[in-house]
């Protein structure tokens, strides 16, 4: 076991996968010589050379497209979108090409590309550098989507993503990069679709991913002091999603709060709520609550940014309200 940062864990995963398989290569804007604007790919170009860690022009559509095209012939391209907001420029290559290749071809061809999307708010990054757009991708059949919250998961899931035969959108959160966590010296790829119970509880289940897992845990601590036992559920991969894990958790708690940074309307939290309302309705002892981002762009000023992004207090308030109303309901 070592205590390393989330960024270092991603770097290690890339390092080890490139070591393991010469078909793995990286491309992105300023990921090579300079090691990335967040330093995540530091040292990799020195180690593996400029033909396996490629600095690209500012051409999101072409670089994602090039990664997809190379993957059609067996290259294991890992392409970085420096800010996930820029995926808006590459949606055709992601959603119309990579996602649909296997299906349209009748199973002949696949695009096993890994797309790293640097996600979430960063502190006054404002409207075009702070978005959480995972809902665009979870809606597109053919894509898998993962969203790790710890260094260990970040490393294990990235290995899985790179080895996965399908295109994978790998969401990594800027504000987690410097967070440290325990990572085993040798770590195996983690199968997708296995949630992690971050903290056990019996009164309410709080589903959260990426940076919001930290806030959910804080919320659970606040609630614990009030005698409310909250379970924190980190799905880790959004597609596939661990439905059985959610069912088991709801069997314990009967109440559901969903948390993400992205705007509430049409966020992946809506899908989680729909799953629960369709399949686990009988387990619900209270309405479902979403403590998610406000339906606004991300503003610049800290006071405004804090207003639109969920925090432990708001998460705890939502959970508390359910527990108080909850038993009354049925």
């Amino acid at each position, binding site marked *: 076991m070592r205590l390393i940062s989330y960024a270092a864990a991603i770097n290690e995963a890339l390092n080890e996968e490139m070591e393991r398989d010469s078909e793995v290569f990286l491309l992105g804007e300023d990921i090579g010589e300079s090691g990335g604007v967040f330093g995540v790919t530091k040292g990799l170009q020195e180690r593996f050379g400029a033909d396996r860690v490629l600095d690209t022009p500012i051409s999101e559509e072409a670089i994602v497209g090039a990664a997809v095209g190379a993957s*059609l012939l067996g290259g294991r391209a890992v392409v970085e979108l420096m800010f996930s907001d820029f995926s808006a420029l590459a949606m055709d290559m992601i959603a119309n090409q990579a996602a649909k290749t296997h299906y349209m071809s009748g199973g002949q061809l696949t695009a096993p590309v890994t797309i790293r999307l640097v996600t979430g708010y960063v502190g006054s990054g404002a409207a075009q550098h702070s978005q959480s757009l995972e809902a665009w991708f979870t809606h597109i059949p053919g894509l898998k989507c993962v969203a790790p919250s710890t260094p260990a998961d970040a490393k294990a899931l990235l290995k899985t993503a790179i080895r996965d035969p399908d295109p994978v959108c790998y969401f990594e959160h800027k504000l987690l990069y410097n967070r440290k966590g325990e990572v085993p010296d040798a770590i195996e790829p983690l199968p997708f679709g296995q949630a992690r119970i971050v903290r056990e509880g019996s009164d309410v289940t709080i589903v959260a991913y990426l940076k919001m897992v930290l806030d959910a845990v804080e919320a659970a601590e606040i609630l614990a002091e009030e005698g409310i036992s909250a379970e924190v559920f980190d799905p880790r991969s959004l597609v596939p999603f661990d439905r059985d894990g959610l069912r088991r958790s709801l069997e314990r708690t009967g109440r559901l709060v969903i948390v993400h940074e992205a705007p509430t309307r049409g966020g992946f939290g809506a899908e989680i709520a729909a799953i629960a309302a369709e399949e686990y309705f009988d387990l619900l002892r209270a309405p479902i609550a979403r403590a998610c981002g406000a339906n606004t762009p991300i503003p610049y000023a800290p006071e405004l940014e804090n207003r639109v992004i969920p925090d432990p207090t708001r998460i705890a308030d939502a959970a508390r309200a359910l527990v108080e109303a909850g038993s009354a309901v049925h």
Partner: protein
Amino acid sequence: MEDGGSTRAELVTLYRTMLLIRRFEERAAELRQEGFIPGFLHPYIGQEAVAVGVCAALGAEDVITSTHRGHGHMLARGADPRRMYAELYARVDGYNRAKGGSLHMIDTGLGFLGANGIVGGGIPLATGAGLQRKREGNAGVAVSFFGDGATNQGAFHESLNLASLWKLPVLYVCENNLYGEFTRQDKHQPMTDIARRADSYAMPGVVADGNDVLDVLRVAREARARAAAGEGPTLIEAKTYRHRGHYEGDMGAYRPPDEVREWLARDPIVTFGAWLVERGSVPQGELNEIAARIENELEDAAAFADASPHPQPDEALEDVYRDTYEGMALR
């Protein structure tokens, strides 16, 4: 025309392949009329010399991305007309198991990475395929076919810049048939020679007579040699014309009759056939036999398609993911 050192057999094959494409498309149009083909069809008729000339310059390890008008490229690459018709018929023996249709036909065995429903969509993919070939030591090149209209897409610009910067082994083959859908070139871009756009990327740009299969072959050979030698990509503009409307059903009324007449008079198959005969080496009778054999081949292909079973509805749920985690990802 210049034979550029092709053998008699090679020349005859060029003719045969162009005619196969022509008749495949004409027949497809009829079959659609008769209700056998449900989707869109964008006929390649009139442009045969481009696909055939380019593909004759390629090797087995080369790969191709195509367009919505892709039947010609696929046949020129050696695809099986039976499985193509079966796909158009939406039957299980089709190339894509009836999931793709005309707009998405693929034959990985031939390195044919697919038609594309997105104008310009194949260009970045070919660029990436070229990148992968370069990583393998230029073992083969990538070819991207696209139209004049596609050269106004951002994907064209970004891809050519990247390919030239990295000296990728890619042939960018623009089939300038003067129209993007119903819009004439002078109404969609302010210049005439698309090949000149290569200058923006310090890339060689060459104009070929897209109705002269030997000229296309010559230009493609040079470009392929340069690419394989690690000298980077080439933009080839093949000037040609589609004889029919944009898709089956479009009457092409927006095109001046004189223009159409003029181009029909330059039919790439008729002219090349005449050249083969005049040049004396190939008697008309041999060309007629070729035509007859093609009729039989297509007759057989249509019968094969017709005999192929319809897919089972639940097959629609297959192939979304290669690895579905026991179907989890499908939910």
